[in-house]
């Protein structure tokens, strides 16, 4: 029943919005070459599904590798920074600067740094984008230790590593996942957008630009739908992982 109540309203709103869109274009309020109607996009998506799928796999793999590398680096560096207070003070503004770095400025430079056939630049862009939210959230989680837990572990004469393993890391897990949830969709966006600026032309971003350049707008939109679905898959997978790795939260309200 709860599932029905949480699923039905957004579905209804979505269907109504799509119908409104379709009608607006059909009636001629917006020219189809400016905004194609959903049925045209759908037709194109069905026609191009094999290409969309291949492009989504390529972009998805880039986003996944970037996400994993960026998140791993962020968690490891946050662990180091949480143990060295001076480093933590320095690292937050540094990470903020990194976050302000526009990938627009970065992608063309990275493409020049690597071979034309290299996947590394796109993945690097995704990793850099992912780094910030994961690092900041993880660091906050690692530094927030319940004072009672601290005294308790001290009374057990637990060493630094034992303390990190048993208290700091599991305590930081909800924070890590807050960062990962943001990072998961960001990774896909980064992997798509990075392709706008050159490099290999086999992903969703490159297909969107080339379709748009040929004024094949329904096809461009079909790839946009693919990118949207890919982002959703990343986000939902992260949510699922969060559920699985923190069973104590899922059962809280039981």
């Amino acid at each position, binding site marked *: 029943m709860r599932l029905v109540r949480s699923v039905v309203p957004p579905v209804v709103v979505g269907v109504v919005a799509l119908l409104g869109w379709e009608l607006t274009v059909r009636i001629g309020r917006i020219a189809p070459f400016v905004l194609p109607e959903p049925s045209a996009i759908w037709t194109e998506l069905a026609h191009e599904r094999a290409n969309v799928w291949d492009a989504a796999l390529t972009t998805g793999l880039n986003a996944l590798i970037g996400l994993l590398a960026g998140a791993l680096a962020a968690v490891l560096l946050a662990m180091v920074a949480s143990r060295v207070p001076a480093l933590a003070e320095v690292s937050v503004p540094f990470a903020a600067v990194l976050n302000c770095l526009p990938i627009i400025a970065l992608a063309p430079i990275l493409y020049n740094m690597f071979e034309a056939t290299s996947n590394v630049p796109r993945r690097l862009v995704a990793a850099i984008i992912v780094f910030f939210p994961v690092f900041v959230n993880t660091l906050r989680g690692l530094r927030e230790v*319940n004072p*009672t*837990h601290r*005294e308790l572990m001290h*009374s057990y004469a*637990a060493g630094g590593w034992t303390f990190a393993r048993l208290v700091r890391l*599991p305590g930081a897990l909800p924070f890590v996942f807050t960062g990962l949830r943001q990072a998961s969709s960001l990774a896909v966006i980064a992997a798509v957008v990075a392709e706008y600026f050159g490099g290999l032309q086999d992903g969703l971003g490159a297909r969107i630009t080339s379709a748009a350049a040929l004024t094949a707008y329904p096809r461009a939109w079909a790839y946009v739908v693919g990118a949207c679905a890919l982002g959703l898959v990343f986000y939902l997978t992260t949510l699922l992982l969060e559920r699985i790795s923190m069973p*104590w939260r899922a059962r809280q309200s039981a």
Partner: protein
Amino acid sequence: MSELASAPSGPAGAVSVQGVSKVFNAGRPDEVVALSDVDLTVERGQFVSLIGPSGCGKSTLLRLVGDLLPPSAGSITVSGKPAGKARRDQEYGIAFQQAGLFDWRTVRRNVALPLELRGTDRAARNARVDEMLALVGLSDFAGHYPAQLSGGMQQRVAIARALAVHPNLLLMDEPFGALDEMTRERLQGELLRICAAMGTSTVFVTHSISEAVFLSDRVVVMSPRPGRITTIVDVAFPERDETTRQSVLFFDAVTAVRKALREGVPA
């Protein structure tokens, strides 16, 4: 089993505090003398409460006994050992006002934690956890997570955890302070039963006069600025149960403690 058996503590008693002072921020403008020249002995099996107004150093004294803070002067022994060695040997169990359970561990694994850190093997650990959970009446909740329990149940888990290594000494810092009156009185009764069953000595910090009197063999009355012991009220009841709370002896002891508290604070 042998590694879990509590070592004999010798004739020194459970706790001996001699000439202990504690100064925070020494030499700075915000210097605070938290404790000044405190002597206290807790005999084996005794239940001793520390009571006094905020700032009298009762929690500080408890932390000094547990070697969670170093004293500025004086010496402390627990089970005949220096406090630091006693801590490293897990000679005491401790419980705080916040239950301080680990959200990500089930009740069973929370209670098992001190045993894990001791390197107790799994079978012995499970047996001991079962024993402790039975003692606090939570056997049916071993697989639950702390967030699924009420505040009183969480505090019982914390007590089970504190006693899991069968320590000679139990240190408690206002463990029932955050609970409602009904739960509080029920847990007081349970705590007495558990301590009696295990022969544990207890140092119990509270700011409730009735709680101190009901639980304790001795009530140590402290006063602030600087923190010191003003009076020790010995309490002896033939029995401690719900009728004790209505007895004349109980009210006499409450009056004695209240009077001592009033005298300790300069008007």
